[in-house]
């Protein structure tokens, strides 16, 4: 079941150079929500922009019946979202998609977020904490002001390390470099990641090299959000004899099928995704 209807914007505040945090009162939706799932929101009550926008659940407050979204203004839809005032009505649909699943065997988990990819990792981190699983969170961003949520994560008393491309905060370089160091040094036994495709691509190279299993959350342009339109597909390896699923099979074409990010994902097992350039 999913909710679709009008909910109330409780808070919508700027929390970074292009980042906003919106809290929405939607008890029916909240009740069903799980870490890693997303909502599909309308940014306008008229016909332009037309499509809904997928935004991850960044906070799930089962008691208050609210969900929060952490989003970056990148285009017209998110711009219109950012202009909504507390008290405004928002047309929201969800929760949608399959979220993260926490495997029994995970003991030392590495959580990696690139850019706005940190958004869906918060409820995951909270869940891992509830399960008392040891975790380290690595956050990567362009520069210091683009690091969002590090303080909040720290307040959850989890270990957080930050990298910035320009070195203005934490490690200077890509979060994937930080991840590689961490994997070598601390030998985590599972990972979760969300971020831009180039980051995930690089991360998969590393984790596959070290044989580290995990889950990644993908993004793709969406129409329906419910599996009906087949717009949001990603390449998933076909579990056949014809291709190696362990490493990146350079050269040989890997057989794939298209799966839907909106309903088969957005979270997929790291071992099965194929990321093109």
């Amino acid at each position, binding site marked *: 079941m999913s909710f679709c209807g009008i909910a109330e914007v409780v808070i919508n505040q700027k929390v970074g150079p292009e980042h906003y945090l919106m809290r929405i009162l939607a008890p029916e939706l909240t009740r069903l929500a799980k870490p890693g799932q997303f909502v599909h929101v309308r940014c306008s009550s008229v016909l332009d922009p037309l499509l809904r926008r997928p935004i991850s659940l960044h906070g799930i407050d089962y008691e208050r019946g609210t969900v929060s979204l952490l989003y970056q203004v990148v285009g017209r839809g998110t711009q219109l979202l950012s202009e909504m005032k507390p008290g405004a009505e928002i047309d929201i649909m969800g929760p949608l998609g399959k979220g993260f699943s926490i495997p029994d065997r995970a003991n030392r988990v590495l959580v990696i977020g690139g850019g706005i990819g940190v958004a869906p990792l918060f409820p995951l981190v909270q869940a891992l904490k509830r399960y008392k699983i040891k975790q380290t969170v690595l956050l990567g961003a362009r520069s210091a002001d683009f690091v969002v949520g590090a303080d909040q994560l720290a307040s959850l008393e989890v270990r957080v390390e930050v990298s910035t491309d320009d070195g203005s905060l934490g490690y200077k370089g890509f979060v994937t470099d930080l991840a590689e160091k961490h994997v070598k040094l601390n030998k985590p036994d599972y990972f979760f990641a969300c971020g831009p495709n180039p980051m995930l691509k690089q991360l998969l190279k590393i984790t596959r090299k070290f044989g580290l299993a995990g889950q990644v959350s993908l993004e793709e342009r969406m129409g329906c*959000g419910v599996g009906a339109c*087949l717009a949001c597909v990603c390449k998933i390896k076909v579990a056949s004899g014809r291709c190696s699923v362990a490493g990146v099979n350079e050269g040989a074409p890997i057989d794939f099928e298209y799966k839907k990010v909106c309903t088969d994902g957005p979270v997929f097992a790291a071992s099965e995704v194929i990321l093109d350039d």
Partner: protein
Amino acid sequence: MTELAVNLGGLQMKNPVTTASGTFGFGPEYAPFVDLNKLGAIVVKGITLKPRKGNPTPRIAETPAGILNCIGLQNPGVDYFIEKSLPYLRQYDTPVIVNIAGNSLEDYAEVTRRLSAAEGVAALEVNISCPNVKEGGMIFGTSCTMASEVIGVVRQNTRLPVIAKLSPNVTDIVEIARGVAEAGADALALINTLLGMKIDVYSRKPVLGNIMGGLSGPAIRPVAVRIVWQVAQAVQLPILGMGGIMTAEDALEFILAGATAIAVGTANFINPRATVDILEGIKQYMEKYGVKDINELVGAAWN
């Protein structure tokens, strides 16, 4: 009581509201939002003989009051559909219209035969207008001879009502409508998407993986209404009208232009309950303006 039942070329429907192929999956996707029993019919995603992977991503782009898509007829193939999707749909008291496509006449013939032998298929909607596949698709729909050939082949292989789905990307759609009528179509589905494209001025590349795509949504409604208006007055076949229907008013525009039934497409993405909301709105309009039978409204704007 308002009478909502319509007959679309031999297919009896409890009301005129159906779903546009490719926008409603195979039924279960929208079941959390819509009681499928309420729909006049369900038109499923286009089915081909063999499974098809479809096109590379991005497959969708937003345009002013519209969307472009280049799904490329991704589908699991006719056998999978009959085995896995039809049983689900048979649970409902709603006729299932299967949208079919093919690369060759023989493809269309074989898909038609298999679906006609299956239980729970109420009608075939023949897609000769998909702008997103290399072979077949739209090329069939833009030539009058080829369009008629495809419909002729389907006709020979089934007793089910045959609905020909035409492409708006033509100079003279009335001519093509006449052609498929003669070839044995029982009804017409108007319209499929307009061929369009979008370029990202920053990457300086086409946005869609397949470069061009099909334009749908409210942006194209004026074109669709015009086509229904023209064809309905020239050809003696019932019409399933579609193209940018978002509300009951939009649906009524098509009916007044001459459509016997309507299909809701892109609107499902924006409002997952669009189909039933539209049905409800049509009922309210009929009650408010004292329209006893929906059929009174078909083509009522002609004079």
